[in-house]
């Protein structure tokens, strides 16, 4: 029995992950598991042989605390302070000696009575094998930019999906959280936002290009490789323009004893911050002031004492305590011809906002079989069930958190008669439904059942030449359920109740055939070739139905059968396909000179015949300088590798059939009181639509110093997106038909990625510190006619916030510049900015109003005075990781930071605007009330004569933050203790998430994410904030 790669599954192993340099830091060798018999019948000691010895490090110093165990049993001991041990072992036994940070050794006892062992420090990072698509490469031979994250580093973090756990773990991989709702995975951006359309990377799970990282139990993951540059990812040419994320799940090993592991954690989450809003008396006072300032009669509702008693903190009512629970089990094992891994898991997160949650039930079986020496087959199968309930937190008209900030604080949650309070009382209370009512009565959920599996076979024709086939299937069945109760007493009423069900199913079938050839000849020439053909088809079909008028709203009556009126019924079908030929040659000479060349040719059904095929070549070279003879004297540099590459990648991630002018039915109208259906063209066709491409150049440097205790990796890249598929800005005279994507724009991302790791073991204490940072600059280099692309408008007043312009980053903030508030009328009359502005002469600008700058110097402040006022893209995204181990304790800290970017605080913009019928931010109490009372918060008014709260730099804030994302403290029970209970390993841990946040940003959470695809970023809509979570858990391995 040997333990190759056993460390992957043994929780006692600790890993430091540092970008592309995952280092097996601590005891890479865990305690080996028992054979089935041993678990229940420990080896009799009668046949024992006494063995003793000393364990030392490479310098001959004794290593106290090293673990010595008998292979295949629970027997074992630990070396003492002098590194000595003594043990009785069965005849013919082998010993496994392991110590954190050192390579484990397995020694057959034979007839020896004394065994002295010298352990070598683990330098496995260079020999590490990376999964690079249709094969693996040793890290030292990789010439592209690849980051790798070991599964162990993201185990048991209380997150609903792996993408959250990836955040900040690798340079150039930016996981942008789009709010903190349970199950929300955020957006993965590799090397910047590469396109205005879908910029998500391709996810490949066990060789199947599939779904999302959300679809997998994070604890099943053995490793995640991120292919960042063109050379690395070109083998997936078709869909590689935005990078490739390759997920490899855990597997069993041949000749491995059965190992059973149970893992569980539970925790609670709470909100970190709420927005201070006005209390009821102050609100009434400020609302009255609006009218008196305008010379208007005060609306009597604000004089009514009934609404001037503070009653409810709506945010506190809405944000309760969330919970997180996870249980999973895994079973691995193998004999000489078969191995398997079996796992099952249940994860449940209940959000802070009532009635929001995420549940996942997962099952996985992976197995490998050797039919004979040359023929191998393997399979992966995952079944997963996800149930999600997400509240609306992205609307500045109905979002629940947005509503909670604005709902009248003088209203109770519920009236004495039990009904929910309502803003129907007065138009002054806004068009907001009671947010607690909204959440309490919300009844919607999405259930998805997914299957993801593949079957592969490999045959070795002659040594080094293999032919391989891979068949994959990804399928889902989804069911959306939404019941809207009858609402009569809220302002957004719905006099009729309704139930909608939305059913869909989709299948993607993959088939791949490829050959690979590995050969070393004449000693110094190593050649690796892989080439093949693949197709993937995608079919989806669905139907939906809505019925109205449910007499009985009981939960057991919320079925379509019960509804009395059929409102709508619909359904459709879609099909997409890809076909590709690919090839890659990797050659190295004497482990010094490396070359990789890749080509892929792809056909996509999304384009019209004639435009379907794209060709995507890439090549890269590497020079391992440290292997040169002239370098052998530079002792402190243990590794030095320079790489460079160029390649072209494709993107077709846009809706299909855009080359056709489609006529859609279902346009509703009525004649004579009867339902009629019309048909209209819903999209303008683009006959010439074809591939978007990205050309990327990469230069990399790998450095290892002091026996690789200090590792550094630098990558510089330029990525140019060409023929970018964008729906161009279109004049309204087209109507409302959808504008097709066109190959129009160009975009450049360039940046520097740095990854550093330092690790050290001193006696029983080990530590490692690592950091990664990416400095990325995003610029749109060409857009149609020098025009801009707009984005989602904000709130009731449809304010423009983000525009994408040539020469600027995607989704730049666009608006007016300001210079404080006018303090006196004299100042207004003398202000050159408004010298010719009719608003000044008509007396529409008053002291206490915002002083906007006349950028085009025509002495009028108008729409022509807007410009790009801010950049939502961080200039640097970084992660800092520190890990410590001492004896049985382990401790780790993980920080995430973003710096050099702006947030547009739209929620505050509306939150201090007195012209809305809403509650306001507490800071509004510091408004302008006379000369020099405020230079920031405009006066109270009911009018928008000066549009004080238009989009301007007044609401732009620095978004920089540093967040303690995770803290983990673990303790592993001493082996002699756990052995008595037949347990080979028992670890207990406490995890904290989002414990600390350093930022000057005034809103709830500086991680706001994308809205409207990539066209809006870091705009505060009062998104679902991230929670502070504490969990405790245990992992027990038998």
């Amino acid at each position, binding site marked *: 029995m040997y333990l190759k790669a056993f460390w992957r599954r043994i929780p006692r192993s600790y890993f430091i992950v540092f970008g592309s340099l995952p280092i097996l830091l601590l005891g890479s060798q865990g305690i080996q598991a028992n054979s089935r018999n041993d678990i229940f019948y420990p080896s009799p000691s009668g046949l024992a042989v006494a063995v003793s010895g000393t364990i030392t490090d490479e310098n001959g110093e004794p290593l106290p605390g090293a673990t010595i165990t008998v292979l295949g049993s629970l027997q074992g001991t630990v070396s003492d302070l002098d590194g000595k041990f003594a043990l009785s072992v069965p005849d013919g036994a082998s010993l496994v000696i392991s110590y954190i940070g050192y390579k484990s050794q397995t020694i057959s006892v034979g007839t020896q009575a004394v065994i002295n062992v010298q352990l070598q420090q683990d330098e496995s990072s260079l020999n590490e094998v990376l999964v690079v698509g249709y094969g693996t490469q040793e890290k030292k031979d990789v010439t592209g930019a690849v980051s790798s994250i070991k599964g162990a580093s993201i185990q048991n973090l209380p997150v609903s999906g792996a993408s959250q756990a990836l955040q900040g773990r690798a340079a150039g991989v930016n996981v942008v959280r789009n709010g903190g709702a349970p199950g929300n995975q955020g957006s993965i951006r590799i090397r910047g936002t590469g396109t205005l359309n879908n910029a998500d990377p391709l996810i490949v799970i066990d060789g199947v290009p599939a779904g999302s990282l959300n679809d997998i139990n994070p604890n099943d993951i053995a490793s995640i490789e991120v292919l960042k540059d063109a050379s690395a990812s070109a083998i997936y040419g078709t869909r590689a323009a935005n990078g490739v994320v390759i997920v490899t799940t855990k597997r069993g090993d041949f000749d491995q004893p059965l190992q059973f592991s149970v893992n569980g954690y539970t925790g609670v989450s709470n909100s970190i911050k709420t927005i201070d809003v006005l209390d009821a008396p102050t609100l009434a006072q400020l609302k009255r002031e609006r009218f008196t300032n305008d010379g208007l009669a005060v609306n009597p509702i604000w004089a009514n004492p009934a609404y001037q008693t503070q009653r409810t903190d709506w945010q506190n009512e809405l944000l309760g305590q969330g919970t997180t629970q996870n249980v999973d089990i895994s079973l691995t094992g193998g004999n000489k011809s078969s191995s398997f891994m079996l796992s099952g898991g249940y994860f449940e997160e209940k959000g802070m906002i009532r009635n929001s949650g995420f549940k996942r039930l997962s099952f996985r079986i992976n197995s490998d079989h050797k*039919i004979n020496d040359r*023929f191998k087959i393997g399979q992966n199968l995952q079944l997963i069930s996800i149930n999600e309930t997400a509240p609306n937190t992205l609307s500045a008209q109905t979002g629940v958190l947005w509503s909670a900030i604005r709902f009248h604080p003088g209203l109770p949650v519920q009236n004495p008669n039990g009904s929910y309070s309502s*803003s*129907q009382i007065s*138009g002054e209370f806004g*068009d907001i439904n009671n947010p607690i009512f909204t959440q309490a009565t919300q009844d919607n959920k999405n259930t998805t059942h997914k299957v993801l599996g593949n079957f592969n076979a490999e*045959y070795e024709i002659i040594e080094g030449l293999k*032919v391989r086939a891979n068949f994959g299937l990804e399928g889902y069945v989804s069911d959306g359920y939404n019941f809207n109760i009858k609402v*009569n007493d809220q*302002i957004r*009423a719905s*006099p*009729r109740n309704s139930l909608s069900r939305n059913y869909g199913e989709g299948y993607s079938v993959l088939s791949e055939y490829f050959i690979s050839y590995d050969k070393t000849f004449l000693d110094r020439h190593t050649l690796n070739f892989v080439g093949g*053909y693949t197709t993937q088809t995608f079919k989806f079909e669905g139907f939906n139905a809505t019925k109205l008028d449910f007499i009985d709203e009981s939960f057991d009556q919320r079925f379509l059968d019960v509804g009395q009126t059929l*409102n709508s019924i619909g*359904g459709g079908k879609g099909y*997409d396909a890809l076909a590709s030929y690919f090839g890659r040659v990797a050659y190295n000479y004497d482990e010094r000179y490396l070359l990789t060349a890749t080509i892929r040719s792809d056909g996509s*059904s999304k384009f019209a015949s004639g435009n*379907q095929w794209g060709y995507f070549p890439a090549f890269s070279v590497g020079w391992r300088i440290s292997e040169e003879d002239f370098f052998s004297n530079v002792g402190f540099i243990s590794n030095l590798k320079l790489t460079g590459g160029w390649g072209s990648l494709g993107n077709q991630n846009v809706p299909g*059939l855009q080359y*056709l*002018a*489609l*006529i*859609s*039915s279902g*346009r*509703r109208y*009525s*004649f*004579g*009181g009867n*339902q*009629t*259906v*019309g*048909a*209209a*063209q819903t999209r*303008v066709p683009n006959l010439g639509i074809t591939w978007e491409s990205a050309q990327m150049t990469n230069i990399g440097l790998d450095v290892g110093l002091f026996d690789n205790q200090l590792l550094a990796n630098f990558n510089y890249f330029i990525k140019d997106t060409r023929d970018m598929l964008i729906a161009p*800005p*279109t*004049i*309204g*005279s*087209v109507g*409302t038909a959808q504008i097709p994507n066109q190959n129009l724009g160009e975009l450049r991302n360039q940046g520097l990625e740095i990854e550093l790791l330092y690790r050290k073991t001193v006696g029983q204490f080990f530590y490692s510190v690592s950091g990664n940072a990416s400095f990325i600059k995003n610029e749109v280099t060409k857009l149609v006619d020098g*025009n801009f692309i*707009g984005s989602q*408008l904000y709130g*009731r*007043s*449809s304010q423009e916030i983000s525009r994408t312009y040539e020469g600027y980053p995607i989704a730049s903030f666009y608006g007016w510049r300001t210079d404080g508030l006018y303090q006196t009328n004299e100042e207004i009359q003398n202000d050159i900015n408004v010298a010719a502005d009719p608003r000044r002469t008509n007396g*529409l600008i008053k002291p206490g109003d915002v002083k906007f700058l006349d950028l085009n110097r025509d002495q009028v402040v*108008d*729409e022509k005075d807007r410009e790009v006022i801010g950049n939502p893209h961080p200039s640097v995204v970084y992660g800092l990781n520190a890990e410590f181990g001492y004896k049985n304790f382990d401790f780790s800290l993980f920080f995430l930071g973003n710096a050099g970017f702006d947030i547009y605080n739209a929620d505050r913009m509306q939150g201090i605007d007195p*012209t*809305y019928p809403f509650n306001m931010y507490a800071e509004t109490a510091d408004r302008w009330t006379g000369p020099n009372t405020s230079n920031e918060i405009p006066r109270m008014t009911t*009018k928008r*004569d000066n549009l004080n709260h238009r989009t301007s730099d007044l609401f732009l804030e620095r978004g920089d933050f540093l967040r303690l994302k995770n803290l983990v403290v673990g303790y592993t029970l001493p082996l002699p203790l756990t052995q008595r209970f037949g347990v080979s390993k028992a670890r207990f841990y406490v995890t904290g998430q989002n414990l600390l946040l350093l930022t000057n940003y005034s809103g709830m959470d500086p991680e706001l994410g994308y809205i409207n695809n990539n066209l809006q970023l870091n705009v505060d809509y009062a998104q679902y904030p991230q929670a502070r979570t504490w969990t405790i858990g245990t992992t027990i391995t038998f």
Partner: protein
Amino acid sequence: MKNTIIYLFSLLILVSMGSCTDEILETTPYGQSTSSQFWRNAEDAVAAANAMYEPLTNEDFYGHAEHTFDIPSDDQFRAGDHGEDQAIESFTFDAGNPQLFYSWRHKYEVISRANAVLINVPGIAMDQAIKDRTLGEAHFLRGFAYWRFAVIYGGVPLILEADVLTNNYNKPRASTDEIFAQIESDLLQAAQLLPVSHGGADLGRSHRGSANGLLAKMYLYKENFAKVIEFGNKVLSGPYPLAANYSANFRVETQNNPEVLFAIQSLEGWQDNTHIIYTTPRPWGGWDFHEPVDDLIEEFEEGDPRLDFTVYKPGDIVDLGGSRGPTEYTSDLSSTGYHFRKYSSWRAQGGLNMSHNNPIIRTADVYLLVAEAKIRAGQNGDMEINAVRARSGRMALTNATMQDLIHERRVELAGENQRHQDLMRWDKAGIVDIVELYKKDLGPLKPPRTFQRPKHYLFAIPQREIDLSNGVLTQNAGY
């Protein structure tokens, strides 16, 4: 054994690779048609015609936003909670005001769907009567959309069939006269092609009366009084009599009576008219916009029954249906003390009846258009004005003046999105002084406002559209 495996394996690969790549990449637009497959028969033509009406119902068009262009009038206080409306009401808006662009694209969508019909339907071999009707509807709706553009913004880009075929959308603005010429041409063709009226299942489609009525109105804006009388009389002599009761035009059961020449149709649970919600008091399930002011209430003659059907006023008992039943309208439901009533009906089981139409032009309107044309042309308009008055039990007038006409239009059409345009038309003709009228202090909610001539005759072209046009669109003078 080994060989067998190799053979099987190779066979599998060959079979799979053999499946033609091109076949795999072939796709079908399931459940949709391409424009080359569509336009086959009468069913397709009718479906395309039906679709032209759909954008009218949008909340950003006649579902509410279009009515906001009447809030500057002296009939109503804007009410509601749309902050941007204050600037529209008080003439302090600038081109960035979102109200200005809400309906812009929807108007062009009507035009775009009409253009598609006008391009494709002529080539379909089908029943001639239905073909004529369909083409007539397209001309009517295109003319109607340009009409709304013309009175709100003046000249706009004129997108016709040829522009669609050449993908030419970013055009400079046509002149107001060119737009009016297009409206005239479209409506004349519509009047020729459309049937005189429709039977039950087609009620709500535009017909000859719709086209002639709108033509009469358009000619009045052009001060071509002879044509107003000519085309108005085609309606007045046609099968479009005034309903016996004024209220019949505003009740769900009778809202498609012959007097209603064109109304935007609404059907609850299918295609709702959200304007119903906008005009209803909040505690009754509405959003409380467009509140009538005292100045309008006082305009009604003592005992004019139209007042009761036009507004909710304190003391009115309204049957809200369901558990609420008959409920008294109280002054605290509104900041002015009133709500418009023309757009709300109540379901027996409670809640607003969402099947309430949005009337656009009625025979009563045409009577008053003809009366105005006659009076302004120096003729006698008594017959027409008295027809409208008689229906509501008003005393007959002799030698009715423009003042009588102005009064009659105000009370007959209150809340029907006419007043502000009427006042501007009369101001241009020197009949009223809109500047003085809007300077009048109508109470704290409707303080004096400054109407600037000629700037405010037209609203501003939406800034967003100017930006999107990359400078091709130009702004109206003064903005």
